[in-house]
């Protein structure tokens, strides 16, 4: 061999201790810990089992929506329709189970299918119609919300008893929404890191043309991506409606921004190619902890929005500054 190989490091690889590496990759986690410590110092009510479970429950819907949005954001897209699709799916479930009298398992399957279908329509507009994702999903935001209103005639519909247990607890303590959130998070992590489609999402978000020329069927993978986002939105909608025992046509309005914020706080980039399930999870927890803490601290309603804004900025700032420090 004429050429030396790749052992060119004169400097010893200089690996950081694993903990540092892990922290380095989960900057949002540091912010979450700081926030939690601050809150437990400020309020005696924060660090109790019940309250932490509450935070989990309160994070669940946003987290599930955000997991779905993670797929989309990794491909460099955006999905503004998740909140509306969640509401539509829940309304469809409640309506088919009560007004149309279908058995609840069938109704649930139909509701999930509706979420999936919304995602597929988004994807078709984006992949084949070449619409910017912002526009396609903004259109779906209106369409899904409108359909939810049309179907429900604007009034909430009671959820079938059986499904509503999704909002309860297992035993005395473990809330089902938390369990569902963890399962969806695990599924997201596995899809992203272990499956063909997951890896393809990163490639598409990193460089769509390079992905295409490497033989990835970009359009098909986009279908899968947005379909997953729609499906996750349906799950989130069902969990939300179960917590309230009632499907609301106006449920989850505006949640799209929270979901996207959770993903971005979790370290993903809106220009694509980056993002992880765990980061998104932490992002959703930060938002939930923040809201919970502000309630516990009795911060006035008007100031809450200011404080939330400041803390979100600080949390991400902490992350970027720390990362710059390392480099």
């Amino acid at each position, binding site marked *: 061999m004429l050429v030396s190989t790749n052992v060119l490091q004169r400097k010893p690889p200089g690996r950081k201790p694993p903990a540092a590496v892990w922290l380095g990759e989960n900057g949002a986690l540091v912010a979450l810990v700081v926030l939690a410590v601050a809150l437990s110092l400020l309020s005696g009510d924060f660090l109790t089992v019940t309250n932490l479970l509450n935070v989990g429950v309160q994070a669940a819907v946003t987290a599930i929506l955000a997991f779905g949005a993670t797929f989309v954001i990794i491909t460099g897209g955006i999905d503004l329709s998740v909140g509306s699709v969640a509401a539509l799916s829940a309304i469809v479930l409640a309506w088919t189970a009560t007004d149309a009298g279908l058995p609840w398992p069938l109704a649930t399957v139909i509701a999930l299918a509706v979420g999936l279908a919304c995602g597929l329509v988004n994807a078709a507009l984006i992949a084949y119609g070449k619409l910017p994702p912002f526009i396609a999903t903004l259109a779906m935001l209106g369409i899904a919300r409108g359909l939810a209103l049309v179907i429900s005639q604007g009034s909430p519909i009671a959820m079938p008893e059986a499904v509503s247990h999704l909002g309860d607890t297992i035993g005395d303590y473990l809330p089902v929404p938390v369990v569902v959130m963890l399962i969806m998070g695990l599924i997201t992590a596995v899809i992203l890191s272990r499956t063909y489609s997951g890896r393809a999402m990163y490639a598409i978000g990193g460089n769509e043309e390079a992905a295409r020329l490497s033989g990835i069927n970009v359009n098909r993978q986009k279908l899968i991506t947005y379909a997953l986002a729609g499906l996750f939105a349906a799950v989130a909608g069902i969990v939300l409606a179960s917590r309230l025992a009632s499907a609301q046509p*106006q449920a989850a309005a505006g949640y799209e921004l929270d979901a996207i914020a959770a993903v971005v706080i979790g370290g993903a980039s809106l220009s694509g190619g980056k993002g992880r399930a765990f980061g998104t999870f932490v992002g959703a927890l930060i938002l939930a902890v923040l809201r919970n803490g502000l309630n516990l601290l009795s911060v006035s309603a008007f100031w809450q929005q200011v404080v939330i804004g400041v803390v979100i900025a600080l949390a991400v700032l902490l992350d970027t500054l720390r990362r710059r420090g390392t480099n």
Partner: protein
Amino acid sequence: GSGSSSGGSGAAAGDIKLGMSVSTLNNPYFVQLRKGAEDEAKKQGVALTVTDAQNDASQQVNQIQNFASQSMKAIIINPVDSDAAGPAVKAAERSKIPVIAVDRVVNGATVAQTVASDNVAGGKLAAQELAKQMGEKGKVAVLQGVPGTSAARDRGQGFTEGIKAYPDIQVVAQQPADFDRTKGLDVMTNLVQSNPGITGVFAENDEMALGAVKALGAKAGKEVKIVGFDGTPDGLTAIQAGTLNASIAQQPQLLGQQAVQGAIKAAKGEKIEATVAVPVKAVNKDNVAEFAGS
């Protein structure tokens, strides 16, 4: 500052902590409601924490849960939605914390007391008032609130039922303006284009009514009669000025005040009435002076 936690100055009522979740503070009506509650809390010397659910039923559930973990002695809920408030109230029930519902009822769970004025009744009253002002004939446009919210639903329903009693009055257009003054202005402007003959407007809140007043300009209150809902300070001013003909006043401050009184009693374990009805009243030029002061 707009401090929502009005600390008790005196220890008269002991260390009673009350939590109150308001459906939204986006709307002066609920700001009034909060003010009534806060003033009463201050007067009685109890600590009151107010949170804003931002019209989001699930956020409201979260807030009630959070109140429970803060061991509030009683909770006041101003439901975003009557049905969706059920599970939240159940959660409080489990922690044995009494709940007072204010402005809207709670379905699917029992509350210690409901302090409300009936939106459906209000809608009917609005229909009567508008009909009276219009001489029981003419064409009416309705400005609807955010589709799918209970206030929009109930007021709309009440109005539709009420207006049926007047065969010479036709509802020619119903369009959403999302409880928002700007949208009220834009939508009314557009409706005037397609229905030039409108002589009456019912807006499901005062904000939209004031938008309609703007849209109609000199005609407002004269050729075109406008009835709003809520009796907010801006609304009352407009009635005095004659641009708004009437509003259905719910006395939000009174609602807030009654709710706090009920909550304190409940916290002390006293017996309280299951319902307190705060009357709705049609405010018009004749009686506006009574309300403007409050």
